[in-house]
């Protein structure tokens, strides 16, 4: 494909935003406030910030969704490829700005991949032969030619996002904006997608704006990082400059582990910037070590204001586990869907009371099918499932659910009541709690999850994070013995993830059985639970996080990514047990430095 860029030289700005403020019709505050931004050609711009900070709103202003589809108060001007957005037509802008959205399902309309990719060109009235040529070209480029005649339901989420990208690339836009394109994908598919985007950029040279929380892959290649907060641009500059700033996590930025580790050890490159890759990191930590050794013999790396937080990780002794009773047990369970597709194959699994278990694996590995057996929503085709001593075939879903609380992934698929309070009451009434108990428990749930001020509001008025908290609160209100969290981190920002960690730790300390279904290794790793790894309906790994999540071959086969800390520890030559968090890592590094076994050169 020919180079898309129509302009020469880097001096020209392809996007110019001047004094832009926008308030959605009927809203009580501005979603964008006096935004000024210039973006040059061929830049890769990563936009970060809390949910609700205005990222999507900003992107919508680039292709005319604002003001043409969303009305409101619009001040200032936006120039895209030299054209003023407010004076263009949306269909014109669609040719310059390709927009890829978050939800793979909601941006594919047609019944075959190639028809869907052709959609934009068809709308623009391109001749058939031209459409054919371009669609084939783009499918080749994205490696999806084999999918040409597939229907949307025959695609994985990662493939759907690729089709969505192809559908905008085919119009040969100069700019591609992607609004959290990976947030519904599992990390493995997400990584593949980001790599694809970067490759396309290198081959075709378009400008990219991407809202993305996983900074580790993008920062090395991004030309710019923008952090938004409450409708304003708080930071705007080169990633290594912005990431050197302190307090970014307050803005919902998930710093790459290497950055956090460098900050913990107060390491900077000679030019004052933060190291972003392992080579730089080792270089500066070696220099740091030499300098510190030369001045006074203190332990390098250890934050002097903090006590030594590092205690050896506790490996759970086998026999101590053996003493606990079983909470859930699967015996030779197979499960097939109506259409004969096997979703679970030969599952045997014992989960003991008080255990915290993470069930991990790529999307579609069978995790959700597995947990639906625990409260009897699904019954095994062969074998049996016993939950707290009751065989699930013998009991109703309602009676099992009294003891097994499942917090489902998407809050929107369960909130229905008029008020937050009645939402919590719903299950309590179903389970026949007496009125006094209901009252107390509702109060407890509202209090403990910081939702009291919303008790009379509609659940629809809550933010995404608050809704998630409500869904957890309403399950914990009936005090189930087993708590299952299905993909708790999907769609949640860093603040919310921290709160989730606290909740899970609290449940663990109350000796509840906690089962977390997740593909999010970065979230699971610090919790160090027992890991049950699934792939294609089977359990392919079961053991402590230290063992399972550091076995790269196994993880690759199961399409799960290695935790950044494990990868980093291996790269810089730290021995097992691998550190749980950044603090532990820096202590461990200090020790290793002392012993002089630190690797100084990467292989």
């Amino acid at each position, binding site marked *: 494909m020919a180079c898309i860029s129509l302009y020469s030289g880097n001096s020209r700005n392809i996007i110019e935003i001047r004094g832009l403020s926008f308030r959605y019709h009927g809203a009580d505050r501005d979603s964008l406030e006096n935004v000024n931004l210039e973006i040059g050609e061929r830049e890769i711009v990563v936009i970060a910030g809390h949910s609700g900070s205005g990222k999507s709103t900003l992107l919508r202003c680039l*292709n005319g969704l604002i003001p*043409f589809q969303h009305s409101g108060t619009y001040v200032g001007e936006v120039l895209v490829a030299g054209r003023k957005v407010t004076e263009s037509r949306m269909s014109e802008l669609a040719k310059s700005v390709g927009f890829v959205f978050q939800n793979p399902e909601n941006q594919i309309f047609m019944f075959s991949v190639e*028809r869907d990719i052709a959609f934009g060109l068809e709308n*623009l009235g*391109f001749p058939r032969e031209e459409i054919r040529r371009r669609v084939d070209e783009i499918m080749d480029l994205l490696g999806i030619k084999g999918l040409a005649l597939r229907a949307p339901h025959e695609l994985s989420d990662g493939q759907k996002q690729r089709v969505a990208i192809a559908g905008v690339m085919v119009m040969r836009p100069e700019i591609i904006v992607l609004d959290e394109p990976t947030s519904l994908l599992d990390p493995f598919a997400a990584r593949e997608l980001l790599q694809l985007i970067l490759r396309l950029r290198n081959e075709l040279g378009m400008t990219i704006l991407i809202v993305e929380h996983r900074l580790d892959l993008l920062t090395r290649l991004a030309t710019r990082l923008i952090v938004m907060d409450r409708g304003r641009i708080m930071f705007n500059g080169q990633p290594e400059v912005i990431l050197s700033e302190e307090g970014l996590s307050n803005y919902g930025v998930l710093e790459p582990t290497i950055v956090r580790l460098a900050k913990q050890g107060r390491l900077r490159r000679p030019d004052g910037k933060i190291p972003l890759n392992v080579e730089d990191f080792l270089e500066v930590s070696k220099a740091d070590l030499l300098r510190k050794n030369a001045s006074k013999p203190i332990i390098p790396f250890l934050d002097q204001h903090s006590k030594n937080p590092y205690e050896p990780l506790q490996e759970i002794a086998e026999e101590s586990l053996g003493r606990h009773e079983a909470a859930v047990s699967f015996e030779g369970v197979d499960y097939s869907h109506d259409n004969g597709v096997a979703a679970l194959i030969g599952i045997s699994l014992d989960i003991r009371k008080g255990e915290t278990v993470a069930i991990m694996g790529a999307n579609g590995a069978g995790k959700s099918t597995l947990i639906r057996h625990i409260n009897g929503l699904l019954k095994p085709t062969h074998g049996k499932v016993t939950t707290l001593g009751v065989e699930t075939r013998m009991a109703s879903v309602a009676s099992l659910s009294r003891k097994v609380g499942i917090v489902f992934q998407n809050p929107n698929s369960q909130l229905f009541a008029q008020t937050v309070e009645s939402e919590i009451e719903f299950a309590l009434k179903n389970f026949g709690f007496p009125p006094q108990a209901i009252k107390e428990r509702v109060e407890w749930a509202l209090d403990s999850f910081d939702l009291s001020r919303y008790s009379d509001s509609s659940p629809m008025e809550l933010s995404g994070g608050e809704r998630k908290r409500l869904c957890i609160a309403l399950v914990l209100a009936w005090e189930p013995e087993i708590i299952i969290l299905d993909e708790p981190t999907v769609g949640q920002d860093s603040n919310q993830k921290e709160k989730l960690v606290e909740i899970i730790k609290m449940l663990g300390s109350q000796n509840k059985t906690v089962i977390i279904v997740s593909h999010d290794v970065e979230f699971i790793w610090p919790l160090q639970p027992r890991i049950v790894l699934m792939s294609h309906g089977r359990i392919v790994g079961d053991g402590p996080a230290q063992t399972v999540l550091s076995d790269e071959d196994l993880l690759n086969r199961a399409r799960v990514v290695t935790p950044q800390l494990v990868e980093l520890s291996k790269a810089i030559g730290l021995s097992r047990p691998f550190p749980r968090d950044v603090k532990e890592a820096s202590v461990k590094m200090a020790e290793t430095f002392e012993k002089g076994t630190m690797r100084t050169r990467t292989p």
Partner: protein
Amino acid sequence: MKWAATGFLFVRGQSVIHQLDPRVRLLLSVSLFLMSLVVRSIFMLSATLFVIIATTLLARTAKRFFKSMSFAAVLSAIAFVFNFFLYPEPFHSAVILAVRLFAIIGSTSIFFLTTTPDELELVMRWFRFPSDFVMVFVIAVRFVPILILDALQIMDAQRSRGLELEKGNFVKRLRNTTPVIVPLLATAVSRSLDLAEAMDSRAYGATTRPTSLHKMTMKRSDWLTTALIVVGILIGFYFNSFFTIF
């Protein structure tokens, strides 16, 4: 309920019938439909039914055909019982009515079992249906299975909160659907907002005459089949005037 979702997921077939131009398939379906409607004798009706079943076998959709026709069979049986016992009709006319009902449903399902929504869309555009209308149709068909799956998700979530959908009297059961219906509507609305944004972002509505990647072309086999169908119809009508009852 899951079968309902899979029933809407279209499979691209490979048979000779699938290779026909969708317009020819439509013609075939409509002709058989009209046949089933107008022929008077058992013999002619059986012949029509025979053609219908032969076509499904040829299209290798027999399995799905009989699955969906089990419903039609029940309907036909009810019609028979109703006509013969409750609303006394002579035996043979009750039989004819039941078989006719079966054939009518069978003939329409030929088209719908062998035609992907893509092709259906092309046919609609060929008939000059307004573009917006076609798009609404396309989106509706595309999202029916998705919404059914959404509904299943929601039911799982609410049953896990102790909701018992099957319990209680009629009024209670009706009330029990609220926790399912409300989130379902919310999800549907949010999906449609997303869709609108995605469509606008891909130049939807740029021209009133959008082009299409795929084009329907009548091959020689299509013309031949059309000729066959026309001949079939003529023969059918010719014989229809001979056989009045049997």
